[in-house]
């Protein structure tokens, strides 16, 4: 029980990081980024690349992935979004547009990484684990085993991923509530039209949010090989669905609700897996539907948004 709870919180913190970028993008632009999971997948490939080429701790891939994807986000934003916003039903069309993008990303990754990436993956994954062990335990005093929390042992990567997620969420909070651009971002989130009318450069704010959202997804992706075991180009689609479940649990459009949603999801996931393992795959979706129906605004939502 304790194990399931603590593992749930660790996974939950990580899941929050997985979902928060998706939520930021939806909250600011009302755009459903179905390619979110593919950003995660690319982040994971950056981590694998960093380890494979430089042979250093994959934690160094975190800032690299973030910067690369923030820039990529700006670029994508200017190519795709203004045109999309001009159409009649941007929210619906965004789903289809970003599905197309996710197909392109998956295809390009497969072309470059090859179709036999699985065997390469597992070999690389081994070196990733040993690297992390050397970095974190070879350097520190002795203990080469799992990290102890409340008398239970947990794999070190879980704890590191959870800690990084916590830092990332705190930074998102600081950005949204203690910087000028963040205040503008919140203004655009609550009323896009009024923000535009008061002279806020909505495009600039949105581009920043889009870039940061993609960057956070990539950072989450860096840890994906440790949390999910392995990563293939086809991993993106599953990750997208999971992210959606988390984001809706928290509340669509409220990035900080995602933190709560992630933890609820994580704890729930671990508990179900421990006690009802054959139903574990089913229950997150049922939970998602129930929450949508009973409380469409999510656990922390302010406004109910129904037809």
């Amino acid at each position, binding site marked *: 029980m304790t194990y399931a709870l603590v593992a749930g919180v660790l996974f939950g913190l990580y899941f929050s990081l997985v979902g928060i970028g998706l939520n930021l993008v*939806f909250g600011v632009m*009302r755009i*459903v980024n179905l390619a979110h999971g593919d950003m995660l997948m690319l982040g994971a490939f950056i981590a694998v690349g960093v380890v494979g080429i430089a042979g250093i701790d994959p934690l160094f891939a975190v800032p690299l992935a973030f910067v690369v994807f923030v820039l990529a986000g700006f670029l994508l934003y200017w190519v*795709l979004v203004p*045109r*999309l916003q001009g*159409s*009649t*039903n941007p*929210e*619906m*069309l*965004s*789903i*289809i*547009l970003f*599905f*197309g*993008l*996710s*197909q*392109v*990303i*998956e*295809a*390009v990754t*497969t*072309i470059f990484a090859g*179709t036999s990436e699985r065997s390469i993956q597992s070999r690389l994954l081994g070196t990733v684990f040993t690297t992390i062990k050397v970095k974190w335990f070879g350097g520190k005093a002795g203990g080469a085993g799992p990290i102890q929390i409340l008398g239970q042992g947990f794999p070190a990567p879980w704890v590191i991923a959870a800690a990084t997620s916590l830092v990332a969420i705190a930074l998102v909070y600081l950005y949204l509530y203690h910087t000028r651009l963040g205040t503008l971002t919140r203004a655009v989130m609550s009323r896009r039209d009024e923000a535009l009318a008061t002279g806020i450069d909505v495009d600039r704010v949105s581009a920043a949010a889009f870039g940061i959202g993609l960057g956070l997804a990539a950072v989450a992706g860096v840890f994906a090989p440790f949390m999910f075991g392995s990563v293939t180009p086809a991993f993106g*689609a599953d990750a997208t*669905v999971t992210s*959606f*479940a988390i984001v*809706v649990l928290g509340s*669509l459009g409220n990035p900080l609700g995602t933190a709560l949603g992630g933890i609820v999801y994580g704890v729930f996931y671990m508990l179900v897996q421990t006690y009802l393992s*054959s*139903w574990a*795959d*089913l229950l997150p*979706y*049922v939970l*998602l*539907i129930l929450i*949508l*129906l009973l409380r*469409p605004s999510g656990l922390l939502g302010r406004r109910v*948004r*129904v*037809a």
Partner: protein
Amino acid sequence: MRDASKHLLFILAPLVVVFALLPGAYQNHLLLFNFVIFLILAQGVNIIYGFTGYLPFGYVGFFGAGAYGFAVMVMHLQTPALLAVLVGGLVAVALGLLLTPLLRLSGAYFAIANLAASLAVLHFVANPALEGITKGPYGVSLTGTFNPTNAYYAAIAVLALTVGGVVYLKNSPFGLALQAVREDSVSASMAGVNIVKMRVIAWLGSALVAGLAGGIYAWYVSVFYPDNVFSSEFSIFAIVFALFGGVATITGPIVGVLILYGIYNLIGFTTPQYFQLIYGLLIMGLVLFLPAGLVSLATRRGWHVP
């Protein structure tokens, strides 16, 4: 109603006749069958998305439910295939009824909830704990009813039903009311349209045709796994085909399926990742440059497209 009979005569009838005659002239019957199935699904998406604006991102849930409805009837009650297909359709309608509360959600919320619902049904059916009923993740084998020729003609009958339904929507006060609800539900409600009833009927109709298609698909392939009949490709393809042609028209989804699924089969199977790349770019280009579908090329010039 003159328009309606014109539509039946010049769109529905040729479509049915061509697909009924093609197996004699063209050897790849599986491909023809898939064309018919995707025509049904694209028109089903057209009914719910084109006429009410709800994007059914988990549309395959109905398809899979129909397939498993068929499988369970045949495996456990040894019913004749046609009856089992009808039951498959009813199972999908029942699932649709169960999911009607989702219609309270709007926009992306509905799409996501629908996606989650289809995944929930998949994991329910594929659950090893239900192996006694659905055979769980191990798939079903229905060799006893295997009869691709009859299944193909049944599929054409369902296609006729579906296209007939769309012709009705296009030419009836009911369809007009649905479109009014899609454009502005408050105004439509003020004008005396019963919004909830309208949406539920369209939703269930759309579920029914997908369920029938699923049942027939199960009949045709006779051996399948949960992941086959709940593959999200069915939802995505049906939506993309319908959108590519243009929704809320009769011809749009048909043109979309014929062109896109045709391309898919021309370039699809040799190098899947290049195909995926082209397909993704095509979808993106479609949304960015032709969001109202191919038919908008004609309507923009003032031509009327049925």
